[in-house]
């Protein structure tokens, strides 16, 4: 059989964590004594450089309208104000509408991704299927064909189905983007569950579906969190698909609102304060979820990037 080169699970240990792997690398071993202080200083400077743009953006969003439009600009607001957020709240169809659109799209994407990939991972990891290798390659097709190249035919298909200007339609696009990564993560996670657990339940006469629910799902929680987290962040931030699929103002998601909000003043110039308020609103949930679920993020990346 001619085999298409295929990524295989690199390790069955989804929970591979850098902290665990690197337990040997205690502070002093890697770097010699004196250079540690220098490197500590470099680390701190690096953190400052990485944080500065975010801090500046958030603080610009808290300037008054006049100060946000000042030339030359100020680094930090001389007086705190929520003007920009009030303007953003009322912008176009209103921020609540756009936030709702983004949340609905992300939620539908997560739901579809899980509904498709949990059973698929189970099937691929736990059953003998004729032509399994081939099916797996096929399922990873979206990895090989970039979705950016598929948007024209999908747009045509969706316009006949009435799925343009429709959040469900956009969620389908987001699901197809996220599918290969998620299937990969799920299959690896299902493969990592010891066979004895499954066999014991099967001997008791449970159906495969019951085994999936009772035996596997409790073990799938980390993988499900990882898949959900990545699907959320992708859907919340995705730009090009949304740009193509959504044109009606009431259907826009947050990234598109930023694009629209760029030229809002009467002269067509940019309301910088409001734009940075939008940036702040767009980044808050992502950063928050990342900080809360960091280890899932890292384990997902380590498993998935090797896809």
């Amino acid at each position, binding site marked *: 059989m001619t085999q*298409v*080169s295929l990524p295989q699970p690199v390790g069955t240990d989804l929970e591979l964590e*850098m902290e665990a*792997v690197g337990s040997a690398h*205690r*502070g002093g071993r*890697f*770097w010699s004594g004196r*250079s540690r202080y220098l490197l500590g200083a*470099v680390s701190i400077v*690096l*953190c400052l450089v*990485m*944080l500065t*743009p*975010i801090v500046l953006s958030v603080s*610009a969003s808290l300037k008054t309208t006049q100060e946000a439009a000042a030339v*030359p*600009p100020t*680094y930090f607001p001389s007086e705190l104000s929520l003007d920009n957020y009030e303007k953003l709240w009322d912008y176009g169809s209103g921020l609540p509408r756009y936030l709702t659109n983004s949340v609905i799209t992300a939620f539908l994407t997560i739901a579809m991704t899980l509904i*498709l990939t949990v*059973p*698929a991972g189970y*099937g*691929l990891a*736990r*059953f*003998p299927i004729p032509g399994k290798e081939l099916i797996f390659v*096929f*399922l990873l*097709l*979206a990895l*090989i064909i*970039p979705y*950016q*190249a*598929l*948007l*024209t*035919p*999908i747009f*045509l*298909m969706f316009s006949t189905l009435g799925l343009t200007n429709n959040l469900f339609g956009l969620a389908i*696009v987001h699901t197809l983007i996220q*599918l290969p990564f998620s299937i990969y993560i799920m299959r690896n996670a299902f493969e990592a569950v010891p066979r004895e657990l499954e066999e014991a339940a099967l001997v008791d006469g449970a159906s*495969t579906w019951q085994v999936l629910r009772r035996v596997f799902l409790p073990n799938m929680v980390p993988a499900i969190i990882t898949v959900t987290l990545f699907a959320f962040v992708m859907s919340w931030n995705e*730009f090009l698909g949304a740009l193509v699929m959504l044109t009606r103002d009431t259907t826009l998601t947050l990234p598109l609102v*930023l*694009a629209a909000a760029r030229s809002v003043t009467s002269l067509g110039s*940019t309301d910088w304060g409001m734009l*940075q308020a*939008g940036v702040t609103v*767009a*980044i808050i949930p*992502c950063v928050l979820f*990342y900080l809360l679920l960091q280890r899932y993020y890292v384990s997902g*990346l*380590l498993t998935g990037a*090797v*896809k």
Partner: protein
Amino acid sequence: MTNRSKLTGFWYVLPALLFVVTFTAWPFLQMVWISLNEWSLITPPEFVGLQNYIDAFADSQFWISLRFTLKYTLYITPILMIGGYLVALLVTPNSGLSRFTRTIVFIPVVIGLGASSFLWYWLFSPNYGLINKFLIDLGIIDTPILWLGVDADLSNWAIIISVTWKVLGFGMILFVAAIQAIPHEITEAAMVDGAGLWQRVRKLILPLTRRTILLVTLVSVIGSLLAFDQFYIMTAGQPRNLTATSVFFVYLNSFPYLKLGYGAALSMILALIILGFTIVQMMLTRRAET
């Protein structure tokens, strides 16, 4: 149970299979067909064979976009690789500060490219942006620099700076994992032999993390070749579409211009280029595992 379970497994995979057939494989076949037609959505499609592909190779904007995309990729990839690796070396020891630095450097990775592009669009703004303000305050420049949309090279560099900030943490985290996976005894032995840090990096750490370096390089290259958001947002292709990347050019033809056949042909060419890199990536993954 053999026969039944063969079918059982298939039923579990079927929904995902149908989804990929409907929303990836079928659109792909349609795209092949559309690319062989002249079609502007208003008029019915007319079969023209390979004419769209011939047109593409004769279209100067096609080459401008492709060349610009390659240039962007060629500039940003070494920056991301070397930068990411240096940061990884810096934060590999599991001290508190290292962990903290890892977390901070990774934060921009989770921010959307759209949001980060709007953030940097403001920072780079000639009169309202803080980058010019900072450079003027330092006395490095007297008049504001027009970073974006006026000069193609300057725009490219401004965008490279913003994207480097955004994705540096991606390579860093994978490099840290790879460096930490090197068995402790190996590095320890080298240290006993009196190998300095530079020697250890060059003779041990780099060769032992070669696979990750290759993979991160390919992921970055593919990502850069598909760049769109940052250019659409920060330069809108200006000046004179000189900063319109390949995906941007596909987008322009397919949607605002509604040249569907031509857009599909361009998509096919782009997909083939990406396919080449993806095959290399998969071969590397497979070979490294066996």
